[in-house]
């Protein structure tokens, strides 16, 4: 982890130095508004990089750590980010997000994404209301059934909430390749707006069926674990970034790995989790780069990382 932090900080320092000196660099391309993707069901555009909160925002009642998370959110919004994703399963993360939003004056650009994660449909509404109070938002933009837990009961309730205007979008989630057949079945049969899945340069199962199905059915795709909780950055960080990474505007492994994910045309938003200001700036910076790898380059990227 330390190696990754140093590398990423060094990259950011280099970017800052480049800007100060007026030097041309790949990082210079990472300016302006982030790349956006349209939510298929509405046409609303959202930045292709969001902010996850698993582990990183679960800091309990620690005042210093809560303020640090608020600074991450400040940097995220300042860089043009919108989607923040959380779950009742993430310990104190909802409270910490709420703390950050209050501290930042409830940014209007927020796209709030949360989940319902409880056995039995009857307890879903109370959990959603608790989550809403913790975030301190009038309503969520997106509510998802977390890991398909009791989805047969929760999903109809979420769709009713959407019809009543109490939530704007509805979705389902899974992670690490679990229950993909069920996910496909739901995507094919239910009027959901989003599906959230794990996708990264080594975990590419969703490319075969789920991403094409999302395109066919007009469902937005949220990508979790784009770095495998940082493991990919640590593992790849033991090796040199290939020289040809500069062709796609990448000067760090984090940029390389995240760019691979967001370059897939069926990905609506990737949500790397971080509790580090420099990292969130770098992540959003990837979305602000105008250069994205094409299909051939993405194959080359995957083959290179697989061979490491």
């Amino acid at each position, binding site marked *: 982890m330390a190696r990754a932090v140093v590398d990423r900080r060094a990259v950011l320092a280099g970017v800052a130095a480049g800007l100060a000196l007026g030097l041309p660099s790949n990082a210079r391309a990472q300016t302006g508004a982030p790349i956006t993707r349209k939510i298929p069901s509405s046409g609303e555009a959202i930045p292709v990089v969001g902010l996850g909160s698993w*582990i990183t925002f*679960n*800091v*309990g009642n*620690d005042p210093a*750590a809560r303020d640090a998370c608020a600074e991450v959110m400040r940097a995220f919004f300042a860089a043009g980010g919108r989607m923040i994703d959380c779950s009742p399963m993430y*310990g104190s993360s909802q409270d910490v997000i709420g703390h950050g939003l209050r501290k930042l004056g409830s940014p209007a650009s927020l796209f709030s994404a949360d989940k319902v994660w409880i056995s039995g449909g009857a307890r879903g509404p109370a959990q959603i209301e608790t989550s809403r109070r913790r975030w301190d938002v009038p309503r969520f933009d997106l509510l998802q059934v977390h890991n398909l837990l009791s989805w047969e009961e929760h999903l109809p309730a979420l769709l009713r909430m959407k019809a009543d205007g109490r939530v704007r979008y509805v979705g389902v989630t899974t992670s690490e390749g*679990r*229950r993909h057949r069920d996910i496909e079945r739901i995507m094919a049969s239910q009027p959901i707006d989003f599906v959230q899945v794990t996708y990264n340069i080594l975990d590419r199962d969703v490319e075969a069926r789920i991403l094409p199905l999302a395109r066919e059915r007009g469902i937005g795709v949220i990508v979790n674990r784009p770095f495998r909780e940082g493991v990919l950055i640590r593992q790849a960080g033991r090796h040199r970034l290939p020289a040809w990474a500069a062709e796609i505007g990448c000067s760090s492994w984090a940029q390389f790995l995240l760019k691979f994910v967001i370059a897939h045309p069926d990905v609506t938003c990737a949500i790397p989790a971080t509790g580090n200001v420099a990292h969130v700036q770098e992540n959003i910076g990837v979305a602000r780069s105008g250069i994205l790898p094409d299909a051939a380059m993405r194959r080359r990227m995957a083959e290179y990382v697989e061979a490491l």
Partner: protein
Amino acid sequence: MSEWWTYRPSDFLMFAPRTYYRLFELHNAEIWPLQILTIAAGLAALGLVWRGAYGRVVAAVLAAAWIFVAWAYHFERYATISTAAPYYGAAFAVQALLLAWFACRRHGPRFDQQAAPVRWTGLALLAAGVAFYPMLAPFLGRPWTQVEIFGIAPDPTAVATVGALLLAKDRIAWLLVLPLLWCAITALTLWTMEAPDAAVPASALVLGVAAAIWRNRSWNPTAEG
């Protein structure tokens, strides 16, 4: 939980290592200077066990340590980042009740186990829980403010308790179940965090189980007081 076989221990780790250790820093700051009292009580228990005297006092100290950790650490502190913490707190409260019962038995507990391997293992673990644990954080490069102390934090409390109970004359192996279980849980948590501290509760678990089995095999009911 569907497809349970696909889950790994890391899938259940819901906080970062820095958050975990910061808990001890916040906890220590909030209850200071209670640490002085619990260390003194732990050292007193170690001395009493060494002499094989005042068994009721030793058991009472352990019971007080477990109930305080249950309430002040698990329910009040750890529960802010771990959904499992209330269950851990309940288990610690149960152990406190069991130790209180042990302290109040008619004949009173005796911590004067004489079988050499068991005696030295028990004393070593008790000493580790009381005297070694406070040095662990700085030894591993963390600040003194994050030290884990007997009667304040769960790991040294459990390790010390395993040590003390190994020295009990009575056949009370079942009293070891929850402390050993905690050693397993915390070793797994720390191992998942890639923390070198994991070696301490893991060692306590292995030594505790081995010594308990040794003691059980060589137990002589006629020698019980």
